[in-house]
């Protein structure tokens, strides 16, 4: 699979977060570059896996700018300056975030939700209307546009939450356990939505967490395992990146799931168990 690395899209340096003096995550460092494949638009799909309580949600809150890190920084590509290498510190609203409950405004219908998400966009009313219509049609939500979140199924809520974040934020989307509690049909729907996001723009980057390692290996082109590190024979009680797998370099990204993928699943699970 031919691909080249271009500019950096996500740069996390020495990230630590502590609550009330207790360090939750520490020394998190990683860098993701824009992957360009000839002849097709390919965004980045990054999976963060790890056992419960290792700091995945805290890392996500830091990546989305919802919490201020105790140390370190999160930089994303600044697409507004025209310079491909321009970067900026992440602020709330720059990165879309879909939580496990697919939280939406309870008092807004799907249509009102999308209108609200587009309120800052420099587009005419007619353009916004057209854009909403396009998404409602292609994501199968047209007939539910006047319904409130409490009247939607889990899958419909999730699709609404994803589109809302696409409309509001730039190229980045963080999803906290998007597959938890979904049936087979809805899992396929989310997988399709990942593909729809990443196939729209080269800079589009989806970061998700999951406990389903097979799914992570199937969907992601880069996987980070977050866990408690062992230093000098002693297991620490803060989360950090303990393993990184680049599926592109291994030739496993964007390909059919086979025995090599299964072997990788075993390795990742082993790393998780040890951390």
């Amino acid at each position: 699979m031919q691909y080249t690395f271009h500019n950096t899209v996500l740069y996390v340096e020495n990230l630590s977060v502590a609550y009330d003096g207790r360090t939750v995550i520490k020394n998190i460092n990683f860098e993701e570059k824009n992957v360009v494949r000839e002849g097709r638009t390919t965004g980045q799909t990054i999976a963060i896996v790890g056992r419960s309580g290792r700091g995945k949600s805290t890392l996500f809150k830091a990546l989305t700018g919802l919490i201020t890190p105790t140390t370190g920084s999160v930089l994303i590509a600044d697409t507004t300056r025209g310079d491909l290498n321009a970067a900026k510190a992440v602020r709330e609203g720059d990165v879309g975030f879909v939580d496990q409950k697919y939280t939406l405004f309870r008092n807004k219908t799907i249509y009102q939700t999308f209108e609200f998400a587009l309120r800052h966009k420099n587009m005419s009313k007619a353009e916004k209307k057209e854009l909403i219509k396009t998404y409602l049609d292609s994501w199968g939500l047209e007939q539910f546009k006047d319904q409130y979140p409490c009247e939607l199924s889990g899958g419909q809520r999730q699709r609404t939450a994803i589109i809302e974040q696409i409309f509001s934020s730039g190229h980045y989307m963080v999803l906290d356990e998007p597959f938890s509690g979904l049936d087979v049909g809805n899992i396929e729907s989310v997988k399709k939505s990942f593909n729809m996001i990443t196939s729209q723009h080269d800079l589009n980057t989806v970061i998700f967490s999951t406990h389903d390692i097979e799914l992570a290996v199937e969907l992601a082109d880069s996987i980070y395992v977050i866990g408690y590190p062992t230093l000098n024979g002693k297991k620490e009680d803060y989360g950090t990146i303990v393993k990184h797998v680049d599926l592109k370099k291994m030739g496993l990204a964007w390909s059919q799931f086979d025995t090599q993928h299964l072997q990788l699943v075993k390795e990742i699970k082993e790393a998780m168990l040890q951390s």
Partner: protein
Amino acid sequence: MKKLFTPFEKLSTTQLAIINGSWVALLFLFWYIVGKVSETHLFPTLGQVWDGFIGLYNEGLVVHVFNSVWLCLRAIFISIFISLFIAYLSPIPLLQFLSKTVSKLRYLPLTGITFYLAMMINSGRTMQIWVLVIFMSTYLTTSLIGMIKDIPQEEFDHARTLKCNRWEVLLEVVILGRVDYVLEIIRQNLAIVWMMLVTVESILVASGGLGFLIKNSDKFMNHGRIVALQLVILACGLLIDFALVKTRTILFRYSKI
């Protein structure tokens, strides 16, 4: 039959209606029998209550009901305005003390307050309203602060990810996002105002109202009228309660409280 005595057993609407109807019939039967066999007649018979009701109706019960409901509505309107203002400002660190203090004032006895209110307010009717307002605002503020505290963090984070500044978060999540809860809180606290009615309306008898009527009937030991009035007050309270629930469900389709 066994189902009727099994915990958590689901029954049909018709079955439930029959059970509820039977309870009401039993209550009236018990009342009728007690009235027949009791020699002391401390509790009025059904006939005495009915006579009391007819007497009250002829003396302008409807006007008194209207007076009481109007008093309540004015008090609720003012107190909800004050309470919402205080509660909506409670997320601002500098003003948290204010909202917490108002909430704590619900433990303050009313007796001392009425004295100071009487010094400040000339009109008896206005004083009745303000006694209710002061009393109700403390409870409403407490409930509204509780409502804000119960909003999940995810909802605030969600608004922030959509580029809402902190004031927009307050507007979208707390104010607009919880309007239906405000109606529900009014409904829950309405019972307190309704309960206070007798006390407050007895401050100024010239203004009339259900409280005045019940006080007057109590003075003359007219138990038939007292019970009739209590039933009227109960019915009015339930009617307002029903109206508020209906208003909430009609105005806010998404409301599933």
